[in-house]
C-alpha cells in the first residue's frame, strides 16, 4: 500500500502540493487526475523518490521512498519525458532495466515487443514520441515491478496502441498484482483503465474515490414538466445541479439512481428518463458540488 500523509511540496514560494493525504491499495489501478500544473507530475516524482517532500510522510508498505534503494527496488517510474532513451536502442533499454530489476522477464519483453513490433536495435532517437513511450512501457512491464508509475501514460499513442498498451498493463496487473499509478488529464483514459481515481487541483487533493462507487453515486435525470421545477421542489433528493434547456429539465443528483428517478416521477413529468453520465461529467458536477467553478477547473 502507498500512503501519503500531509504531504507538501513548495517550489520557492509556489505551493505545488498542499497537505495532501491519501492511500493507494496494493493491486489497484490508480488514476491521478488534474489539469496542467495541478501537481500530478510532482506527486509522481515524490511517490517515486525523485523529489523529496518538504513536509509530511510518503511510504510504500510502511517504508520511506526518498533515498531508500530497497523501497525503490519495488517501483518503476516512466515519466512523460523520453529524451533519456535517445541514445539507447530498445535492446539497450531492455539491458538497462534488466540490470537493476532482477525480476525482469525476457519472455514478457519478447512477447510485448512482438506485439508492438518496435525495432530492437535501432536508436530510439529515430523513434516517434509514441514509439518511445511504448518502448519504455514494455520495459517497465517486463521488469515486473510491484509498483508502476506512469506520467501521462498514453500521451502520444495512437488509438490502437493505447488499446495495446492498456491490455499489456491489465495483463501484467492480473499476473503479478502490480499496482499501477497513472497520471493524466484525459478522463476517458482513466475511466477505461483505473479502478480508483484522485483529483488534484492547485496542489490540493480534491477527492480520491473508487471509480465504480463514484459512477454509481451520481446520475442525471432528464424530464419534461409543464412548469420548470426548482431545486427546492425535490427536498428528498441530493441535487448537485438543476438545468432547463428547450423545455427539458436536467437534474444531476447524488444517491441511489432508482430512488431519485422515482422521486422525479412523483412530481408528474410528461417525460422522465435516466441518462448515463461520462466520467468527465461526473467530475465536473462533483467538483462543482464541492464549490469549484467548472471554468476554474479547466484552467
Amino acid at each position, binding site marked *: 500500500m502507498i500512503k501519503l500523509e500531509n504531504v507538501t511540496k513548495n517550489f520557492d514560494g509556489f505551493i505545488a502540493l498542499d497537505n495532501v493525504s491519501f492511500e493507494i491499495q496494493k493491486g489497484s489501478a490508480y488514476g491521478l487526475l488534474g489539469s496542467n500544473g495541478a501537481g500530478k507530475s510532482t506527486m509522481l516524482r515524490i511517490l517515486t523518490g*525523485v523529489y523529496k517532500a518538504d513536509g509530511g510522510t510518503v511510504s510504500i508498505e510502511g517504508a520511506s521512498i526518498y*533515498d531508500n534503494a530497497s523501497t525503490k527496488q519495488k517501483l518503476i517510474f516512466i515519466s512523460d519525458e523520453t529524451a533519456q532513451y535517445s541514445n539507447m536502442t530498445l535492446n539497450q533499454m531492455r539491458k538497462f532495466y534488466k540490470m537493476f530489476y532482477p525480476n525482469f522477464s525476457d519472455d514478457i519483453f519478447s512477447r510485448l515487443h512482438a506485439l508492438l513490433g518496435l525495432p530492437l536495435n535501432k536508436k530510439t532517437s529515430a523513434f516517434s514520441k509514441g514509439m518511445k513511450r511504448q518502448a519504455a512501457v514494455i520495459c517497465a512491464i517486463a521488469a515486473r515491478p510491484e509498483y508502476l508509475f506512469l506520467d501521462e501514460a498514453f500521451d502520444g499513442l495512437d488509438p490502437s496502441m493505447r488499446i495495446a498498451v492498456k491490455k499489456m498493463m491489465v495483463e501484467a496487473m492480473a499476473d503479478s498484482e502490480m499496482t499501477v499509478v497513472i497520471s493524466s488529464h484525459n478522463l476517458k483514459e482513466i475511466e477505461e483503465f483505473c479502478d480508483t481515481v484522485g483529483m488534484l487541483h492547485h496542489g490540493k487533493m480534491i477527492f480520491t474515490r473508487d471509480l465504480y462507487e463514484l459512477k454509481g453515486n451520481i446520475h442525471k435525470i432528464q424530464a419534461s414538466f409543464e412548469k420548470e421545477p426548482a431545486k427546492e421542489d425535490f427536498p428528498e433528493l441530493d441535487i448537485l445541479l438543476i438545468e432547463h434547456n428547450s423545455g427539458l429539465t436536467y437534474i444531476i443528483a447524488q444517491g441511489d439512481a432508482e430512488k431519485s428517478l422515482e422521486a422525479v416521477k412523483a412530481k408528474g413529468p410528461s417525460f422522465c428518463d435516466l441518462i448515463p453520465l461520462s466520467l468527465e461529467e461526473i467530475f465536473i458536477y462533483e467538483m462543482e458540488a464541492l464549490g469549484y467553478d467548472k471554468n476554474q477547473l479547466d484552467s
Partner: protein
Amino acid sequence: MKKSNFSKYLLYKFKSHIGIFAASIVLSLVGFALSITLLGIYVSNISEYYDNSGNMLNFYPQWLNDLNMAIVIYGILGLAVSALGLLALAFITPILSFKFYNNRAFTDMIGSLPLNYTERFFGDFLSGLAAVCLPYLITVPYVCIMSGYVGSFGIEKIADLPANFSQGAFELGLIVFSTYTFSSLMVSLCGKISSSVFYTLAGAGLIPGTIFVYTLSSLSGLLGVSADVMAFGMVHWIPPVGLIPDFVYFWGDYFATMFEGYHIIEAQTYEYVVAAILAVAYAVGAYFVGKYRKTERIGRDLVYEKVFPVFAILLEALAIGVVFCVSGSVNFITYIFAAVLGFLCFIIIDLIHTKNTKRLLKDLIGCAAVCAVCLVFSGVSISTKGFGAEDYVPAAEDVAEIEVWGNQVFIAENKAFEYVDPDAIEGIIAEHKELLTQKDKLETGTGIEIRYTLKNGMSVLRSYSARNREDQWIIYGAAGRITSLTQKGDYPFGVLSMNSSEYSDLSFAGIIDYDEQVDSEHSYRITEKFMIKPEKTEEFKELMLNAQKYIAADKTMHRDIVNAYYTKDGERQSEMFFIFYEYEDVYNFIKDPENRITINDYEKDPMLSGNDKVVMSYSFSINIGNDRNYLRLNVTSDSEDPDVAELISLCSIDPTDCTYLIEARRTSSGYGNVFINKKDEARAVELILKLLGKSIASKE
C-alpha cells in the same frame, strides 16, 4: 557473486563514457607518452644547433626539414595538444556524467532507480573520473621510468629525459584531477548545461584571477619584488587554474633556449599538497552540494541561489583589480574607470542572472560596497608600495630556510644554495638589509635572488641586480659574504674561486676575447706556475681579485676568463666566469710579453703530456663557420690518416702569434686549447679543408 546495484550502475556509467575513455587513452598514451618519448630520444640531438658561443640558436623554420628537429617540435606540439585535450575532457566529463543535474528526463529515470544518493553520486563521479584519468595514471609511471626518476629502485633510464619530467607529468595529473573535481562541484551547483559551463569556467578563474591581479597591482614596480612571480606564487595552491602557469612555465623552462622562455615560478611541494587537498575538497563539496540540492530546481542557472552574489562580487572585484593592474597607479581617472567597469560588470551579470531590474536596484547597494572596498584596497596597497613589501625583510626567528641564487653569482653551480643554520640566516638577513641601504644603485633583477621560506609555510622572494655595471660589486660583495657564511653544497668555495677561495688554488686560467670570432680568437694561458713570471704573480693576484667587481652576466658583452682551475680533494676542478670589457687590466697584463715567461720556460702541466706539440690530445673538434653557425669536424689523434697526423704536428699549445684555435678534447677528462701558429697557417687550412672534404664525401 551477486553484483550490487552500485557496481552495476558504475559499470553502466563507465560504458556510457567509453568515448571519453578512448579519447583519454589517445591523449595520454599516444599523445602525452609518445611525445615525451620522442622528446626523450631526440632532444639531445638538438645540440647541433648551438652557435659558437654555446648559445642555442633561435628557431628556424628550415629546421623542420631536419628529421630530428621536426620530431622534437612535433613532440612538443603533441605534448601541448595532449595536455589541452586532457583538460578539456576533465572539464566536460562531469557535465555529461552528472546529467541527472541538468536534464529532467535523466532526473526522472536515474532518480527513481533503486540506488541511494551515495551510490548514485559515486557511480557518476567515479565512472567519469576513471574514463578521464585511468589512462593517464599509466602515463605517469611510464614517464617516471623514462626519466629515470625511479632509478633508485634499480630501473635505468630508457631515454635522455630529465628527472623533473616526472614532476611535469605529476603536475599535469594534478591539474586534470582538480579540473575534474572542480567541474563536478560546479555542475552540482548548476541546473543547466550552459550555466555549468559558464560557472565552471568563471569559478575556476575568478578566485585565482582576483588574487593575481590585486597582488600584481600592489607589487608592480617595487624594488626587488618580482611582482609576476609573487602573483603567480599567490595562486599556486588554487587548483586547477593556479597550477596551470607553473605547468606551462615548467615545460617552457626545459625548452627555454629554444623558445627563449624562462622558468619564473616553481610550485613548492607543500603547495602541491595544498592543491591536492583542495582538489579532493572540491569532490567532497560536490558530494554534499549534490546531497542537499533540490532536485526540482533543475533548469535553473544556479540551484543554490545564494552562490550567485559570490560570483557577481568576484567578477566586479576582478574588473576593478584589472584596471589598477593595467594602470599601475592611483589617480582620479583610474578610480573612476575602475568603478565604472566594476559596476558595469556587476550590472550585466546581475541582469543576465535575475532578469529583473527591481532586484538589480536592491543588489546595487552590495555592488557599491564591494566597489568601495576594492577601490580603497587598491589605493592603499599601491600607495603604500604593497603594504611595505619593498622594504620588508623577514625576522630571523620567523625564517625556516633561505635559498640564495643568482645568474651573476652562482654561475659555476647554476643552482640555489640553501641555508638553515640560524647564524647563516641572520647573516643573510643582515646582507639583505645592507642591500636595501643602496636601493638607488639597484633594480629588480636576477643578479641575486633570496627566497625566504617562513616557518608558517609562506615564501618571500626578493631579486636584485645592479643598475650599472660599476655597481656590480654591491651584488658580488653581498654574494661573496653570503656564501662564506656556510660551506654547504657540492662546491666548498661558494660562489667563485675569484671571490672566496684562496688565490693559490688557481692553477690555470685562460681568456677568450669575444670581440673577435673563431677565426681570430685569442686565448692566453695564465698561471703563476707556467705563464706569469714569478715576480709578477703578486701583481696578477691583485688584478684577479679586483676582477670580481666586473664579472658580467651578459655573455655577449664580456671576455671569458675560462677554465679557472683549482684543486679540490686532489681532483682538478674548473669553473667559468666572465668579465666586462671595461675591465681590461687582466687582459692587458697577460698580453704584455714582459709579464709572461716564454714557452720554453714553463713547467709541464700535469694535465698535459706534451710541450709545444699536441701529443696529449686524443681527439679534436675543428670548428669552422661564421657567427651564426658552424661546422664541426671531429678527428682523432689515433687516426691513420696522414693528414690528421700532419695537422696534429702543426698544433701548438703556445698561443703566441697564433691564428686558429682548436679545441682539443681528451677522451677521458678535461680539455684544452691548442693553436696553429701563423707560419703554419696556410698548410693547416689546406689540411682542414681536405679533412672536411673527406668527411663530407664519406657521409655522402
